[in-house]
């Protein structure tokens, strides 16, 4: 028993088990585990996300909500969704940015403290997706606020969003 504990302290090996229903391959699981270490380093075990809907169809929001369910349980990585941009490290923006949400998105961006990272989540955040060319959309988030990372998919699955967060971490910690 004591040996076991000492061994664990020495190797600092963390074991994350995935619950049933978490459809993921072992390689991806390994990546996610190393992703955890990166968050630990970059944000001292805490990454706070403020989700902003800028005209999405609501599918992306439900996938973000699914991240907090007991199957994906994103909080165990130290990641959580917060209620105000003032509390956030990252803005997760969804939707092609409807013209009537532009101002609100800009204000939310300015209210976020530095480093003020932006993740654009969903196909329509890239170039407007199916809404591209409509008079009432801005054809993508980058036309309104600077974007650090894109997550594609319509909507991206919860696993794709977790992977996207991982990419962002790579970008920060190198």
């Amino acid at each position: 028993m004591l040996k076991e504990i000492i061994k664990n302290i020495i190797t600092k090996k963390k074991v994350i088990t995935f619950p049933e229903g978490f459809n993921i391959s072992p390689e991806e699981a390994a990546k996610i585990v190393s992703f955890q270490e990166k968050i630990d380093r970059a944000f001292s075990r805490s990454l706070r996300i403020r989700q902003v809907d800028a005209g999405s169809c609501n599918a992306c929001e439900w996938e973000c909500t699914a991240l907090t369910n007991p199957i994906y349980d994103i909080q165990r990585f130290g990641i959580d969704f917060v209620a105000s941009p003032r509390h956030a490290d990252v803005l997760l923006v969804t939707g092609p940015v409807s013209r009537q949400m532009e101002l609100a998105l800009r204000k939310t961006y300015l209210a976020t403290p530095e480093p003020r990272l932006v993740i654009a989540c969903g196909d329509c955040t890239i170039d407007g997706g199916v809404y591209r060319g409509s008079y009432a959309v801005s054809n993508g988030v980058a036309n309104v606020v600077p974007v650090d990372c894109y997550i594609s998919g319509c909507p991206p699955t919860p696993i794709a969003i977790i992977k996207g967060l991982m990419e962002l971490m790579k970008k920060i910690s190198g």
Partner: protein
Amino acid sequence: MEEIYRKKGVKIREHLNEQYIEVSRKDFKDSCAYLYEKKHSVLRLMFATDERRIDNSFRIYTVFSIPGIDRFFIIVLSLKDDDFTFPSITTEIPAAHWYEREIRDMFGLIPKGHPDLRRLILHDSFPANSYPLRKDWSITETDLREWGEGVKQKEPYNFMEVEGEGIYEIPVGPVHAGIIEPGHFRFSAVGETIVFLEPRLFYTHKGTEKHFEGMSFFDGIKLAERVSGTSSFSHSVAYCMAVERIAGIEITEKAKGVRTLLLEIERLYNHIGDIGNMCAGTGLAVGYAKGAVLKENLMQLNDRLTGSRYLRGINVIGGVTKDVFLQADAILSTVNDVTHGYKDSMRLLLGSASHIERLENTGGLSKDIAQKLGVTGVAARASGINDDIRKAHPHLLYDRLEFESHTMTKGDVFARMMVRAEEAECSISMINALLENRYEGELSVEVMEIPEYSSAIGYAETPRGSVFYWVMSDNEGRPFRVKLRSPSYCNWPAVPFAGQGNIVPDFPLCNKSFNLSYSGCDM
């Protein structure tokens, strides 16, 4: 009906179960009022078209259906000679109030006699005297740049104000605290009690109806699927149905089976998820977590069946792309597991006094108000209005399936939860019944030709209520006009009434019990 038919200058045109009755300007209001008051009909949707290219007129269409008759009565009014006004029917039929304001915003046609002519869809930052759905309208670069803070010709929007001692305003949104869609709410409160609530929506307005006009009928499906995320399948069913009815195609038994089955699976995952979500409103973490896991199981089933967690990419014009009945075993076993878990969690919820206490008598919506505002779906049935498109206008396989539409009378949050619970059980038994039968035929039939300048209605019952698509073709085989009406558009005006008299902290719960889509409403 004879009363309308006998009027002078009435032209009647029939297409399937749609009856278009063209009346004169003088008779328009009376005809609508007659259908509404004497025949107790429901206003399903109201919209305008710009048909100046065809015969130099704008047209106003008001679609009614009379309970017990599978037929749409559509009163049509033509506006000729540059007369951009039409008689408002809002004072007679309050359910028309949003439709008429929308027509004013999008076409610049003024409903004369409307009590509230503020803008609805376009915000004050949109250039004045600019009407997007007119055929000769296109936005210029300068207008686009202007749209927003720099707009020169502003059309101001004044919120209603409540005056009195101790009354204060709480503005909330458009960016909310949770992971939800944007909308602005302005509460006027005394202490904690809501005296008046005014929502300002349409922040997610994406110009969907205009965007349809630039697409092919086939590409339109992709757009219809992305109007409201959790009702993707019902929206695409309604859209495809409208186009199929224009083209005069009857889809095969197999396609009907697949569509009916997936409509019920969509209803099931939404209802189970919504019941769980209501627990988030009362702080019952266990109930919320259980609901979320059950919903996730169904989403993963969707993924296995169709390759999309939101059942996208299945509908095509003329049928479906996949035979989900091949995976009947997977459906059965998942639905069985979910049923067990769901019954378990309902026992937990109904046994939790603190949860039920919060739901009862909160957010009450009276039958009278619900009827006047034309509320649809779960919200209507919880207030005692027995209206279900699956029964009222049977389509797909619904005339062969045995099911009941459940109603409650109280119209509070608890009633809306129980209606969902009973409908979920109903969907489970329908899914089982559908899987017992075999359905013959190809997956889809070929669409040969879409006749020019013809129109039809498509409809479906989404988890939130009825959705309608009215599609008209042009002479080049493209959509000329697509009018979509999501259930949330009908139900949003009722939310302030349900909120009144409650305390502000109960509003999120109240809102969750309706679970309306902002994107679907804002179009």
